[in-house]
């Protein structure tokens, strides 16, 4: 058993443990923190696979950005001490059965399949190669997805702002007569 193996099982164990805790914890804030641990462990696996850039992105965007966002929204929508409402036991059991069956089936399936690891020389996923691939447009170039994802991010940003913004007429509805009753009734 090498250090590598130990590292791997450590990460794997923490991923599974904290995943389970994420979906079972009664306190939402704790769930978020457990999720953070899962994501960090995943980043560790990426490091192990020698994908350092991806691991860095995982840490900054996921662990840094999204988790903070989630924690903020938890703080906005519920009390820290508030315990989450749990689904009925029946629902839990059935869901557990279905997911367990699904997991078993999937694992069973791919275990039967013999993957043949490739022996071809690996490409170093360092920042140089990654950066080049991201902006080149030929074969193995990812310029178009890069641009598309940037537009998506912009759109998501605008959308998030518009959605989360307080609607004006709601704030002033009390002292202004509604002019167009048809369009305002949806909110």
């Amino acid at each position, binding site marked *: 058993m090498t250090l590598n*193996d130990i590292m791997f099982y450590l990460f794997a164990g923490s991923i599974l443990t904290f995943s389970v805790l994420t979906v079972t914890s009664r306190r939402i804030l704790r769930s978020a923190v457990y999720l953070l641990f899962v994501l960090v462990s995943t980043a560790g696996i990426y490091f192990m696979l020698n994908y350092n850039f991806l691991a860095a992105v995982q840490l900054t965007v996921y662990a840094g950005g999204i988790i903070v966002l989630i924690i903020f929204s938890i703080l906005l929508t519920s009390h820290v001490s508030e315990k989450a409402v749990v689904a009925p036991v029946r629902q839990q059991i059935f869901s557990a059965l279905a*997911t367990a069956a699904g997991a078993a089936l999937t694992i069973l399936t791919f275990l039967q399949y013999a993957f043949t690891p490739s022996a071809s020389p690996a490409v170093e996923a360092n920042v140089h190669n990654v950066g080049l691939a991201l902006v080149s447009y030929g074969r193995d170039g990812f310029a178009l997805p890069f641009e598309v994802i940037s537009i998506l991010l912009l759109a998501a940003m605008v959308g998030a702002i518009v959605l989360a913004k307080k609607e004006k007429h709601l704030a002033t509805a009390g002292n202004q007569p509604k002019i167009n009753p048809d369009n305002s009734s949806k909110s």
Partner: protein
Amino acid sequence: MIDNIPLNSFLVISTLMFFIGIYGFLTRRNLITMLMSIELILNSVNINFVVFNKFLYPNLLHGHFFSLIVIAVAASEAAVAIAIIINIYRNFKSIDVENLDQMKL
């Protein structure tokens, strides 16, 4: 570095993570925890992409980039989802998914 760890181990982990995420999605009543379950699912998928890339096509980086893009999508998805959740909270004073069946009628 990873030579002695079989591909299947990674796959088992990602699969279990995936179904744990689904379990969470099916059982948690809070919208935000449901969102977190989705993040789990996405994450497990990412692992798969990366692992397949590393083991089966080490000469390419497609899986790597796919994960990168999924992370970006997850980020924007989280942003929009949280905006929606906040909006819902503002209107319903609750983010319990059980109360959100207005679209049915």
